[in-house]
């Protein structure tokens, strides 16, 4: 069975060109960039060039880019570093949102245990933060603001440039987790007043386990991982040369094709959204209809549970995702969907389809055909759906349980 991969928000298939570049690099660039001999210096030169490529694509200088082991480390690092800087100046208040990725949320929760106070801004029903809410939350002791660029579950894009301007005006450092956005949306850290930005290569057809942090010159970056003098003494550990090269190649490719890909993927997305809305009763699109990532489709279907939907789709060769963190052993539905104000029972019935430019209209048509059948099948055996049908239990009554 040919698989249809529509879980690109979880991770993407690597670009063939990127694999090629990495394979070459694995053979050639084994020298350690810290070594003074020619093998080492060749690797150092390759890393330098890759850093430059990435900086250009983000609109910054190359000495403002630090490589990390992925988006998670970049988020942890930025937040820990900002917290330390704040603490030194007696500032122990942080502003974020309710629907950040766990890499941000769990780091903030750890800081709360250490005595920091975090204001988690509500997101609207449409999944977009209001700039005015951020403004209201800023206090004299606010150390920094961290708000994601685009949400990983519902794909909504935040008003980053405006939040950045607001922070700049108030002298508050602004970090954004742009893991879902980089390579998919045109980003310029300078123009958008971003002080720190996290990215992760595997979200734009690059390798897993590598990403980076942009940190504007002038902002003190405190070390999180100690050791050798790599990354200008800021992040220790032998540089992952082939993956750094893969990151640059992937970002270059993604940004070159960005406009074309975005238009193509957005068209596919909109067609599938329309199809589902019209073919599946009591289905709900999560997040703003327009202001979302090109590839993101997030739905809730009343009366069914996401994991079984997901596995049924998988049996048809469709690789998608549910919003809920089933594997993590948690019984709670997605905190993102709850942040939108959805009741638990509806949030349980979530499905995320995330497209990429590798997907075809045939694939989308197949999904549009199969999905309603599976939803029906699951609803037929669902006691919740039965109650909804006979009106015994109104959806809203779930909310107040």
């Amino acid at each position: 069975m040919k698989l249809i991969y529509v879980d690109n928000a979880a991770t993407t298939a690597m670009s063939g060109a990127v694999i090629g570049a990495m394979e070459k690099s694995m053979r050639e660039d084994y020298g350690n960039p810290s070594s003074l001999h020619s093998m080492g210096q060749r690797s150092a030169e390759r890393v330098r060039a890759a850093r430059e490529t990435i900086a250009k694509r983000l609109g910054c200088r190359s000495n403002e880019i630090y490589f990390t082991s992925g988006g998670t480390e970049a988020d942890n690092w930025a937040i820990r570093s900002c917290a330390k800087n704040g603490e030194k100046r007696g500032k122990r208040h942080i502003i974020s949102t309710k629907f950040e990725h766990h890499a941000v949320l769990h780091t903030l929760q750890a800081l709360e245990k250490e005595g920091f106070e975090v204001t988690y801004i509500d997101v609207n029903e449409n999944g977009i933060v209001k700039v005015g809410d951020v403004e209201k939350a800023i206090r004299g002791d606010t150390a920094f603001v961290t708000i994601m660029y685009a949400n990983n579950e519902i794909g909504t894009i935040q008003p980053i440039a405006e939040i950045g301007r607001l922070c700049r005006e108030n002298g508050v450092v602004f970090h954004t987790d742009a893991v879902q956005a980089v390579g998919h949306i045109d980003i310029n850290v300078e123009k958008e007043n971003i002080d720190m930005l996290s990215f992760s290569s595997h979200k734009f057809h690059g390798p897993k386990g590598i990403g980076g942090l942009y940190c504007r010159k002038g902002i003190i970056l405190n070390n999180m991982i100690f050791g050798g003098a790599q990354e200008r003494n800021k992040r220790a550990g032998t540089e992952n040369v082939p993956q750094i090269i893969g990151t640059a190649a992937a970002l270059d490719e993604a940004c070159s094709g960005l406009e074309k890909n975005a238009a193509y993927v957005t068209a596919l997305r909109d067609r599938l959204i329309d199809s589902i809305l019209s073919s599946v009763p009591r289905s709900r699109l999560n997040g703003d209809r327009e202001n979302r990532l090109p590839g993101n489709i997030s739905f809730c279907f009343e009366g069914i549970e996401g994991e079984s939907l997901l596995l049924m789709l998988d049996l048809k060769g469709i690789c998608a995702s549910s919003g809920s963190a089933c594997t993590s052993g948690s019984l709670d539905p997605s905190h993102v969907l709850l942040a939108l104000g959805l009741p638990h029972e509806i949030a349980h019935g979530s499905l995320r389809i995330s497209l990429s430019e590798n997907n075809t209209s045939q694939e989308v048509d197949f999904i549009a055909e199969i999905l309603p059948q599976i939803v029906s099948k699951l609803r037929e055996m669902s006691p919740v759906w039965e109650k909804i049908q006979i009106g015994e239990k109104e959806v809203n009554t779930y909310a107040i349980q």
Partner: protein
Amino acid sequence: MLYSKEVMDHFTNPRNVGKLEDADGVGEVGNAKCGDIMKIYIKVDNEIISDVKFNTFGCASAIATSSMATEMIKGKPIEEALKLTNKAVVEALNGLPPAKIHCSVLAEEAVKAAVANYYSKNSIEYDKELFGCDGCCGSCKIAGE
């Protein structure tokens, strides 16, 4: 794979799906908030479970455990159904991931709830101790993690 072959079999081809309009006992446990509801219908003839159906809202293992549990009590004396343990269901399914054990607890409890309902309807005395579950899967969380 996340799930055993047996779980996937019962998930993709669940046995005894449906309702019994003339059920002698109906049990429903779990709640939608927690993400699992199981509803089991039994028909009892001469203290034998002559037919059984289920409806389940929940994940693949919730559906599979419901299916397996109904298979395990079908045609059995009602006394025996009461002895069905979640462990037996898990074993019959060749294991469940740790986070999903609570589904098997729910299945055991759904069966018991249906039997209890049958006993009540027929004013049969029964040992309430056998029915520990309050129907909220929150209490099963401990077992599941």
